[in-house]
């Protein structure tokens, strides 16, 4: 476990750090954090358990175990990352391991929402662009990459790629409003009006 920076807070304009490549489509949240580790009432210990079974199977060869990747903070994945179970334990485990941004072709919806709620951008690019970036990131594990949410780019100074984020997520991250609770609680009068107009709350 290589927690290098504080957990996300406030507006998120860019994430800088070393990259880490995890190849494969359809990597599900059971693989990111196996269910037995969900037996907890706090998320604190999850960082060490990220990809526990995959790491065991690869006996030290998993990217999360390789010494050169300790301290990496930008995860570059392929298609439909985070599918399956809604467990927020998955992005929590990644965040507590040290991940602060993810870049890939696409994400499962619930996973993406969970990441947003933690202030972790899930950026996308086309499949061939991602493959090229994965090669570039793997070529030099020491390179410092920046995922820039204003310029919408992922770059190490020599290689640069345009990235996308869903517009809602992008605004919420840039403005620091990704932690939705405050906004939702603030509109209680509107909430009450909505409830008063719903037939099933009012005897039909």
């Amino acid at each position, binding site marked *: 476990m290589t927690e290098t920076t504080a957990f996300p807070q406030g507006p998120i304009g860019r994430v800088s750090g070393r990259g880490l490549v995890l190849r494969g489509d359809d990597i599900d949240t059971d693989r990111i954090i196996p269910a037995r580790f969900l037996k907890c009432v706090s998320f604190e210990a999850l960082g060490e358990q990220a990809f526990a079974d995959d790491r065991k199977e690869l006996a030290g060869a998993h990217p999360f175990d390789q010494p050169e990747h300790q301290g990496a903070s930008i995860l570059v994945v392929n298609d439909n990352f985070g599918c399956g179970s809604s467990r927020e334990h998955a992005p929590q485990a990644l965040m507590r391991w040290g991940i602060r941004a993810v870049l890939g072709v696409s994400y499962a919806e*619930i996973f993406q929402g*969970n990441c947003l709620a933690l202030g972790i951008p899930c950026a996308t690019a086309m499949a061939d662009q991602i493959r090229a970036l994965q090669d570039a990131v793997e070529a030099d594990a020491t390179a410092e990459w920046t995922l820039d949410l204003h310029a919408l780019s992922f770059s190490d100074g020599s290689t640069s790629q345009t990235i996308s984020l869903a517009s809602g997520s992008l605004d919420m991250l840039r403005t620091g409003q990704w932690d*939705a609770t405050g906004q939702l609680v603030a509109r209680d009068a509107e909430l009450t009006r909505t409830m008063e107009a719903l037939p099933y709350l009012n005897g039909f």
Partner: protein
Amino acid sequence: MSSGTLYDKVWDLHCVADLPGGATQLFIGLHLIHEVTSPQAFAALDDKGLPVRCPERTVATVDHIVPTISQERPFSDPLAEQMLSTLERNCARHGITLNGLGSGRQGIVHVIAPELGLTQPGMTVACGDSHTSTHGAFGAIAFGIGTSQVRDVLASQSLAMSKLKVRRIWVENRLTDGVFAKDLILHVIRTLGVKAGVGYAYEFAGPAIEVLSMEERMTLCNMAIEGGARCGYVNPDQITFDYLKGRAEAPAAEIWDRAVAWWSSLASNDDASFDDEIRFDAAAIAPTVTWGITPGQGIGVDERVPISDQLDPADRPIAEEAYRYMHLAPGQPIEGVPVDVCFIGSCTNGRLSDLQAAAAVARGRHVADGIKAFVVPGSEQVARAAIKEGLDQVFREAGFEWREPGCSMCLAMNPDRLEGSQISASSSNRNFKGRQGSSSGRTLLMSPAMVAAAAIAGRVSDVRQLS
């Protein structure tokens, strides 16, 4: 953009406000919670000093971590005991109804909310569990959420959401004998893939859907998420209303007619427009079995494990990974593959009609030597109804274990799990690597009747050929 669909109507009715980031604040009509994804949400609420906004619209049960052999307290697993006592404390503190063990109402969250009549057409339903899509069977907009969103619903009875597109899955004709809703949804996912539904709600409609029972519709919508669709739904109709009438939390007699009138108005209009539509023929679907490590890797029981070269290039790497992990060879028939463990239960297929279908296969037969087979009713109510019909005895006499309600081996957060590289025939919803509790355990998904047939034969068998 869709218009005039049930999804559009329900969405519009629940919009509270437009949020600065572009998301919509959506009121949540029913919030279901359980022991696994709620403790950190309650802790976060405490950190912010916020109360639960609508405790009366929040309902709890315990399902994921409960043992299915002995449910005596304290549990032998101290972590499980801690999770349950934390939920009990949180519910008591905030005035939330907990349908706990022995209450007569406990069970898998997606089984109990429908059977109690809590889930109703036109509601928005959220729960910290991806299979919340189940509740769409009633014409509700129901979706899984993470723990931070559980916190948001507790605090505000609402969520920041973006509207989905709507894809209609139109199914012609009727399912044939021995083919169930489970086979239909496995077929849909196999055809469209596990990510085709990302960004969509799935409306299931057409002649084959209209004749499905509510329990079959729940099986169908339950697995919409396995096709990437965060919610799936069926328009409410007379079958829906008949199911709900008289249930504990359903509208009372004096307002029943008004409720039905409103519910009826929510169904997608005849001239509704969808973002996409895909058609299937129910009559062409065989009992379907997964052979791989995603729910999209399914084939008819009479087919062979696909050969990599015949697959779309994008699907080949995960197929190669699946051959290795599953110890199955390309081109091998799936029928006849030996199994070790047979599991009937889960939020997909743990309801009374599922147990009836499996019992019809098990009756008068016996589980093959060396096979561990067990039946886990989805709830205390399901267990009572099954026992009343003598199904527990049918299963016991056939060599199945009869268990207490819970999620059991679907996800193995409790003592029920595979050991080593055991292979299961399972009526659950996920065949991911390690899903059933062993990092090398293997899962073949199929209908409860097909699981029973596999238990009897000791290998994957076509339930249609059992005389």
